[in-house]
């Protein structure tokens, strides 16, 4: 059996939940098994009037059965109550492969569940594979593909069932495939009751952390992880003033702003903006890199970008071998030309 665990927050399924659903569907298509969903809501969960809408959205994803589980005390960054509650649920169901979202909180929950229930564990899964060469006699399991070495290699692995895997954010996106046989709104969402929680077996029981304060960043730009367009600058920008011009281009393109490690280490941009190995991993539709040479450490953070524009004065910059469009130019002249071009009226199409 394939199981998927998702969040129900603010009266709906958030994007990370939809990505987990798509991942589970992919696995179910390969394994030839149905997907059962476990929908977790902090607190009491959706009212009776919301169940219809939830059932319809799950059905659109080809989900055949769903359980609704309320996890009291579960909140962003406080996953221990979720783990306690879900441990009971997992234990009460026949063994299978569990797919969970790729957020930091779910990754934490997956790790805790795997240890507590002795499940196989894999994180950052980007694809499920048909059983292939080498997996002959290993027994009941699934095949997962994960990036290793900064995404420069992919590792195809067999892991034994029962298992729990968290998908990588943005790895499974798009719309569910339409299935003619699926009638809309046909999923019966069962509200789970039963024993509350399986607590940890450790000598001491972990208390959940207390959230004292949450500070939203200044909303100059959307969060890098969610941005469809990212304009990033590197050492070639020459100083903090360069980032002001870069910000103008980011705004003109309706995107967010990023920076290379060199620019962050030089103090020209805050760490929160760093894209790469020791910063953030991003998967925008469009990534513009200005004055960034394209070291492997930077490429590791933006490998998921659909299209990449590299702008550099040095025609030998490694980025030119790893981009979709290459522009050999002075970044400032090019940026000013871009601002003029974007401001000019154009005919769509």
């Amino acid at each position, binding site marked *: 059996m394939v199981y998927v665990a998702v969040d129900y927050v603010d009266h709906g399924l958030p994007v990370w939940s939809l990505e987990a659903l798509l991942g589970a569907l992919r696995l179910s298509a390969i394994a030839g098994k149905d997907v059962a969903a476990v929908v977790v809501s902090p607190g009491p969960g959706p009212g009776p009037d919301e169940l219809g809408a939830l059932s319809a959205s799950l059905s659109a994803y080809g989900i055949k059965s769903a359980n609704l589980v309320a996890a009291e005390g579960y909140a962003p*960054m406080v996953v221990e109550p979720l783990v306690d509650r879900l441990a009971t649920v997992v234990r009460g169901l026949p063994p299978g492969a569990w797919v969970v979202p790729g957020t*930091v909180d779910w*990754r*934490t929950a997956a*790790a*805790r569940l795997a*240890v507590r229930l*002795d*499940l*196989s*564990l*894999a*994180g*950052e899964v980007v694809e499920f594979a048909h059983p292939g*060469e*080498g*997996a002959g006699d290993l027994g009941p399991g699934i095949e997962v593909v994960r990036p290793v*070495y*900064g*995404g*420069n*290699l*992919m*590792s*195809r*692995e*067999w*892991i034994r069932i029962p298992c729990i895997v968290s998908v990588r954010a943005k790895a499974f996106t798009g719309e569910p495939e339409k299935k003619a046989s699926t009638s809309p709104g046909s999923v019966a969402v069962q509200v789970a009751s039963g024993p509350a929680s399986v607590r940890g077996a450790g000598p001491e*029981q*972990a208390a*959940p*952390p207390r959230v004292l304060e*949450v*500070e939203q*960043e200044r909303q100059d730009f*959307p969060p*890098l992880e969610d941005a469809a367009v990212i304009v990033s600058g590197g050492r070639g920008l020459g100083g903090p003033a360069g980032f002001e011009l870069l910000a103008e281009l980011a705004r003109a393109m309706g995107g967010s702003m990023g920076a290379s490690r060199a620019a962050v280490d030089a103090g020209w941009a805050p*760490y*929160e903006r*760093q894209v790469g190995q*020791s*910063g953030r991993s991003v998967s925008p*539709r*469009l990534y513009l890199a200005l004055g960034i040479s394209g070291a*492997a450490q930077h490429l590791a953070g933006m*490998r998921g970008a659909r299209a990449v*524009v590299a702008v550099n004065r040095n025609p030998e910059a490694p980025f*030119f071998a790893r*981009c*979709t*469009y*290459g*522009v050999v*130019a*002075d970044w400032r*002249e*090019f940026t000013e030309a871009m601002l003029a071009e*974007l401001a000019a009226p*154009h005919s*769509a199409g």
Partner: protein
Amino acid sequence: MKIVVLLKQVPDTIEPRLREGRPDLSGVPRIVNPFDLYAVEEAIRIKERLGPAVETVAVTAGRPDAEAALREALAMGIDQALCIDAGELDEPDTDVVFAARALGAAVRWLDGAELVLCGQKSLDQQSGILPAAIAEVLGWGFIPDVGKLDLSPPNVRATRLLPNGRAVLETSLPAVLAVLKAINEPRIAPLRGMMKARRAQIPHLGLSEICPGPPRRRTVLEFHAPPARPAAMILEGTAEQQARALVAELRKGRLL
């Protein structure tokens, strides 16, 4: 107050060549996982702040030559080191849950540890899932993505970096914290530290002495290269011509 820093020794590359479906690591030097150096530095800074009542211990589990990673931590200023001889943990087939049980057992063996610090991920594997698993093995609290920490027993307060901001969390000790680059800038080991580290006696423990062997439940079938991007389209001309061509291309491809 004992602070344990968990270290992993990794090959110093993120671009290994493939040979027969495996990364070719021959001749690649091995280093302390760069993400773990932030944990080493933070432990030393805590000790500098709180004084000699704090004892810092670096622990690694891996091939016997992983000792070199521990000497680097000692050179930076860590007090003690413990090496778990567990070559099987260095294989790509390592089961994460088993690795967590082994490292959790090492922390327990040390007795009296109240804080475990580690890097958020490793240079080679990078799934970032191990620290939380270790916390569960120990039954301790866990905070990931830590960019700042303030230890005031019986609690530790940590700033967790979020995609769109930050949050201040507090958890009771003992706890496991996974730190990010933003937390500090690791020092260069002083010459005196290096001399001391070279002479240090590092105790070794066999893995089987602290943790029973694992069932085989993970097997790497093969490594392959990710799909490559097609060759780039190079835009020629003046900056104005390049900008015009790019905007036209992006609009055509519905990328803008």
